[in-house]
């Protein structure tokens, strides 16, 4: 690292290191490695393979302050939600804004409380999946996160309804780094909607990380929705999941708005007969930039994964898709499918797609595909020749294009955000 970079990194980290209430304080076994990682890891740059198409200078070079824990939350995309609603503001769990419906087998509390009341479970799981030793921003999250959601489902607990988790970040130059821990014991079932809002136009930096443990026979389904409204809003959303045998993990990521969004989804498939599904959509306008990085690590035989991301790029927007599938030596009989489709609508927009397969077992069926192009003008003409106006024809085709992914979204409330009629 050059002295300039070193200095930049120190100045950036300096802004966060001012108080003592971090979760790490109660995780002594992690402290040394986090400290080392922050010292050793470089600021990602153009030659950092995993950050090849996304620049972080704008985050590093700006001033940030830790957001207030009692800031108000603004509008929700789900005002009529009747189930449990968990609200985090600036990374802090807000009981006053949340509506919690107690259910059998469910422990739902703040990470801050969990570090006291469920210290052992938290200590065992927290940061056991994530990559704080490899990724500067993951180390940053672990070093400075103060709160988040702690959710534990007991054996065979199945919730009646879905849980809505809403993350708001607001306030000038606010940074928020929360850390969530979700544990599904054997046979448990959980459906979630996770919404991220960059409230108003405030410049914000959100570095959010969740670890999800899907136990044997357990099922986890989550629809992630992102709506960052301001221009100077930077968001890193990282999810780490581990699957025990016979489990299912399904995640959809819909980026409705976001000027600078980086999503990292990493799934370790550690047990046999698992199913992993990752879906994503993005429709980017103006100068928006969205980078979806996914990793599915097949470590054991007889598992299946499906991955499908589709996006449309308008104006000067830029999109990145980097999907990595590992099939380890022992993971025979793996079926892995990965597809990324893009439509570039403007000459000033660009798309970088990198679907990767790393395969070390032979008895597998793996395929990936990536297409980037434009509308089939013949289809536009065909629709117009039946009396549909050009604009409506194009809208119909946009819907048809992303429709394949939208139909995989679990919650009708999320589908409705795309104007899908059911």
């Amino acid at each position, binding site marked *: 690292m050059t002295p300039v970079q070193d200095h930049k990194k120190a100045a950036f980290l300096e802004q966060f290191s001012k108080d003592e209430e971090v979760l790490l304080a109660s995780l002594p076994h992690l402290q040394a490695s986090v400290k080392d990682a922050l010292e050793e890891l470089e600021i990602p740059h153009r030659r950092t393979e995993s950050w090849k198409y996304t620049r972080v200078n704008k985050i590093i070079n700006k001033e940030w302050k830790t957001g207030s824990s009692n800031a108000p939350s603004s509008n929700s995309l789900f005002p009529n939600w009747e189930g449990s609603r968990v609200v985090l503001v600036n990374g802090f769990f807000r009981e006053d804004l949340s509506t919690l419906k107690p259910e059998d087998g469910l422990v739902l509390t703040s990470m801050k409380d969990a570090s006291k009341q469920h210290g052992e479970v938290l200590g065992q799981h927290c940061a056991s999946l994530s990559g704080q030793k490899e990724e500067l921003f993951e180390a940053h999250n672990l070093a400075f996160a103060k709160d988040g959601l702690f959710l534990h489902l007991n054996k065979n607990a199945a919730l009646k309804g879905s849980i809505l988790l809403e993350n708001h970040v607001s306030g000038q130059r606010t940074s928020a780094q929360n850390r969530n821990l979700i544990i599904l014991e054997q046979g448990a079932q959980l459906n979630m909607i996770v919404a991220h809002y960059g409230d108003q136009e405030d410049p914000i930096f959100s570095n959010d990380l969740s670890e999800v443990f899907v136990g044997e026979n357990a099922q986890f389904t989550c629809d992630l929705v992102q709506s960052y409204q301001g221009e100077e809003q930077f968001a890193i959303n990282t999810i780490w999941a581990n699957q025990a045998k016979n489990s299912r993990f399904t995640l959809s990521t819909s980026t409705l708005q976001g000027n600078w969004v980086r999503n990292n989804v990493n799934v370790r498939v550690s047990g046999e007969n698992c199913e992993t599904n990752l879906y994503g959509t993005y429709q980017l306008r103006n100068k928006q930039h969205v980078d979806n990085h996914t990793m599915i690590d097949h470590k054991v035989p007889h598992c299946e994964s499906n991955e499908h991301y589709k996006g449309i790029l308008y104006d000067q927007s830029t999109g990145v898709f980097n999907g990595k599938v590992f099939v380890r030596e022992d993971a025979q009989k793996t079926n892995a499918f990965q597809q990324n489709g893009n439509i570039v609508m403007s000459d000033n927009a*660009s*798309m970088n797609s990198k679907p990767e397969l790393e395969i070390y077992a032979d*008895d597998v069926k793996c395929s990936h595909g990536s297409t980037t192009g434009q509308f089939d003008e013949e289809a536009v003409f065909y629709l117009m020749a039946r009396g549909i106006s050009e604009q409506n024809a194009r809208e119909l085709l946009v819907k048809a294009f992303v429709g394949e992914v939208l139909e995989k979204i679990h919650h009708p409330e999320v589908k409705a955000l795309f104007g899908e009629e059911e």
Partner: protein
Amino acid sequence: MAYEGDDLLEEVTGKEYEFGFTTNIESDKAPPGLNEDIIRLISSKKNEPEWLLEWRLDAFAKWSEMQEPEWAHVNYEKPDFQSISYYSAPKKKPQLDSLDDLDPEMRATMDKLGISIEEQKRLSGVAVDFVMDSVSVATSFKKKLGELGIIFCSMSEAVQEHPELVKKYLGTVVPKQDNFYAALNSAVFTDGSFCYIPKGVRCPMELSTYFRINESGTGQFERTLVVADKGSYVSYLEGCTAPQRDENQLHAAVVELIALDEAEIKYSTVQNWYPGDKNGAGGVFNFVTKRGLCETRSKISWTQVETGSAVTWKYPSCILKGDHSIGEFYSVAVTNNYQQADTGTKMIHIGKNTNSTIISKGISAGKSQNSYRGLVSINASAKNARNFSQCDSLLMTDRCGAHTFPYIEVNNSSAKVEHEATTSKIGEDQIFYCLQRGLNEEQAISLIVNGYAKDVLNKLPMEFAVEAQKLLAISLEGSVG
């Protein structure tokens, strides 16, 4: 640092050194190590013009500041660049009295490839009258080309005979600082091939280094430059299917192709360098930079069948600069035992209506690692650019790896880029079906693998294709796990 010391030394001794050096060397082999003096020695031995020496020295300066790349999906012990000798005078292959002196394993392979006894003798350097025949063939061949104005000679000869062409085109497609190995090659290349096809001429025969190698021997740092002037056509063959042993572990060649307006270059390679033994010991490191530049309505087509080398690092690429230009890449890469290959292509679309096709077929066996790495980059200026890529991997055992790393960068709205990749095991049901019809396992595998690689093999010139098919079968013998 030692380099600074050398600089200092040169400053002190000054110009005198430059002139006096060559006479100080009695032997025809330079001492191991790389510094400016060695480069001056190479240049002077080859009687090169001043500009070329400057060019080499500049490349060396740039190389000295570069790091050996580590991004490829290969593991090997990095060569010690100071222990290599960068110059030795061309010498004849050791002469054997009869084929009986030849390594029996090598001979068996040649038999299987269907190489005739005479040919085997020639390839392995057995002294027979036959070699004379070969020379006479080469001579009549050269005469015919000369009548058409086609220049086909060694790079050293081209530097002497056609300096204006070499100076105009050398390093224009692969700049000397392009990458670590290209910079090294630029500094120390000893020989290679040069080919120029004049305007509107269609080269009547396949040009092959096969003929030229007999004259001067292959180099460790080969440099090839092919220029097809406007409206011309040439098909160029490189390498041969016979196994090639080489005492040099590191090979870092550079190939530059230039297709001027409406020209077409077809460049076919069969690479069968010594891959090391079954335990992964020895074997050639093949770090090659191959790139072509396409002007308006021109076409460059790379076809390669790669079965050799311990470590391969190779991305024959096309810069589609001219409008309506076409780039193609057809590749079969086989890895067995402990071989590692990281190969693919780059298609850089700059001109309008440019079109590229990538067909890559990887076959992994033994404990080998076979990676496809490719870039399709569509610049904003490349309106209506099209690319289609198909990258398939076939796995023969449960100990090998097959990896796909495509980079797709699209920067305009009228481009269409499609990439497809599949990875699967060789079909046991297919093998069984063949066995049931009376074939043995080797025949069955050969049949299936050749079918799998057909799209690429079909692009090779006829006689090459037949040999390549046999080569695939031999490379995979006994490989089903």
